């Protein structure tokens, strides 16, 4: 990931709990955060946010992983009911994987395909209960087109699991990024004085 960043990107890293977190600030003031498991180095979360035109912080958009299930004050308006299907992307070593939970209908109900015009995966249901177009940002960044043959899916335990096999180029890029990430030591402040934190 780090290799694909534009010039002038600021990177900072930290370890918190069982996660290694990398924070990128892009030259256009938008932010990207990646979180990896310390033991397995699995990508758990990748989220982006950009400033709105007027300068307000936008919402976090989760590419991988799911937003924390928190009840916020803004939730006073409306929120999707917890019984709705939820889509979460997980990262597997050799594939992109999406899980749609809360889909209790039989397997015959679903169809998953590649839309070659829009370069998106499309999930449809015969009973018109769920519909989703999925863009694979990783493939778009590498300018790769989607192939129907790399796609597979299954349905078990009320969950629809969609898999898209990572092509060679993506695997190679991820390997390079991982090497860079592991080699680079965590940024340690040069002077050991603690940052200027006022006590109350």
């Amino acid at each position, binding site marked *: 990931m780090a290799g694909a960043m534009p010039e002038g990107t600021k990177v900072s890293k930290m370890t918190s709990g069982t996660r290694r977190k990398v924070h990128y600030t892009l030259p256009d003031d938008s932010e990207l955060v990646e979180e990896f498991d310390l033991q397995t180095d699995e990508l758990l979360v990748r989220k982006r946010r950009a400033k709105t035109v007027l300068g307000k912080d936008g919402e976090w958009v989760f590419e991988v992983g799911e937003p924390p299930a928190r009840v916020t004050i803004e939730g*006073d308006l409306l929120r999707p*009911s917890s019984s*709705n299907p939820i889509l979460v992307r997980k990262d597997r070593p050799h594939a992109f994987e999406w899980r749609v939970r809360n889909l209790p209908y039989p397997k015959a109900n679903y169809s998953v395909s590649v839309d070659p015009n829009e370069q998106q995966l499309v999930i449809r249901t015969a009973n018109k209960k*769920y519909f*989703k*177009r999925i863009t694979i940002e990783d493939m778009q960044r590498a300018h790769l087109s989607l192939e129907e043959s790399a796609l597979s899916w299954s349905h078990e335990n009320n969950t629809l699991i969609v898999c898209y096999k990572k092509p060679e180029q993506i695997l190679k890029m991820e390997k390079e990024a991982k090497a860079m990430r592991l080699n680079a030591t965590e940024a340690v402040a040069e002077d050991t004085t603690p940052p200027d934190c006022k006590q109350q």
Partner: protein
Amino acid sequence: MKRCETAELDWNPNGNCPLRPNSSPRIPPLPPPFPPPLPFLRLLRCFSLSNLPTAALSSLAPRATMAASGVKMQEVKDITRIERIGAHSHIRGLGLDDSLEARMVSQGMVGQANARKAAGIILSMIKEGDIAGRAILIAGQPGTGKTAIAMGMAQALGSDTPFTTIAASEIFSLEMNKTEALTQAFRRSIGVRIKEETEIIEGEVVEIEIDRPAAGAPAGGKTGKLTLKTTEMETVYDLGQKMIDSLTKEKAQAGDVITIDKATGRISVLGRSFTRSRDYDAMGANTKFVQCPEGELQKRKEVVHVVSLHEVDVINSRQQGFLALFAGDTGEIKPEVREQIDTKVAEWREEGKAEIVPGVLFIDEVHMLDIECFSYLNRALESDLAPVLIVATNRGITRIRGTNYKSPHGIPIDLLDRLLIISTVPYTEKEIKQILHIRCEEEDVEMSEDALALLTKIGVETSLRYSIHLIIAAALVCAKRKGVEVEVEDIKKVYTLFVDVKRSTQFLMEYQSEFMFSEIQDQDADMTDTRV
């Protein structure tokens, strides 16, 4: 309905009239009757001696009211709480025709033909938007429609043009500098029309389900579910109280195609779905049919909207990072932030991304500003980002606040020189009658011709505001005696119950010695701030 008729109709001290359950929040309770002192009786005799026709027989038929079940009542109450009747809610515009001539009675405006014509010319200047920093003074006696004209201008400009109304006393605060408060008011009145991407939910309503809390639970505890669908999918949303209110207000129902702005929660009904076109044989003339949306429910859409410069200031002056959690009030905004915003907006304008919508700042009771504010105004009006400033005052030649100098309208001559002055004149008897008639309609009060004539006479002799206030009081008295329309006797009754300024002053002058502190006859005891 039947129950209402037989119900005890005695006056209830809480001001709740059993016949009109829904209007109770806006009716002030009547104070206990006040024995009218001598001068009042004298004035009353004047009225009865005048050549007014006698009151017609009052019909005893009960006033028709809405019979409402408990559930229905709750709903109606929720909405009426939002739309109360204000002092100027009958005004819908300036009442001008295409050639800017004032129509006699139109859009809630009566009389003041010259002032309205002048305001119309200013209005067309604002609409063109090329001229910045002009200022207009509306001057006239109390109760001659200065605020009404300003409200009319705001209504005529529409909701897209920023129109900020402040009273001059609002800017005096211990937390904020006077000039900062004025600057914020100025920047609230300049809009920027800009394209922004927002997330919206667009779908056809399948079902709205609102759970009513058990009786006695707080009113804020309502929850609900909304099911929306497109041609491809269906989603259930949990609703908060605010959302339920706006769904009720927009009268959204199953089969309507609606959009919800995710950030603000604003709901708009686009029309009815084609699949529901055969639900009823008869449809309203303006029922619009639309296709059920396709694809996903949530979409990103570019929306053009107007934000004020002040709002952009606030967004960009907020603390970043975790400090934002502790930032409550914005308070004063640093000049550097404002400069940054100004250059950013200028950039957007050059790139064609945004355009400036100059608005109006209306300062009521402008004589309450002090000399520092006036000199600030002189300078602020010279900026090319200044809005059109409208100020109103009811003072004649008076002291400028903060000095010992006297000046017309309490405004320094150098600022007065920059103002175009529109003056309002007292209403004629005919006009007062018209205004009272309009207010009767606005307050949903039926009044007999004689009662209106009497009220007009009261309006001429005392003041327009006093007679307007008598309308609803008389209506309540009328409802108490089960009358259908307000008669002369009702007006007479409230006239004795409520004293106007003239009678009150007269009473005070006669009985001054019996009031508290009357023994101190100190010349310096007046309450003016001459020491400043």
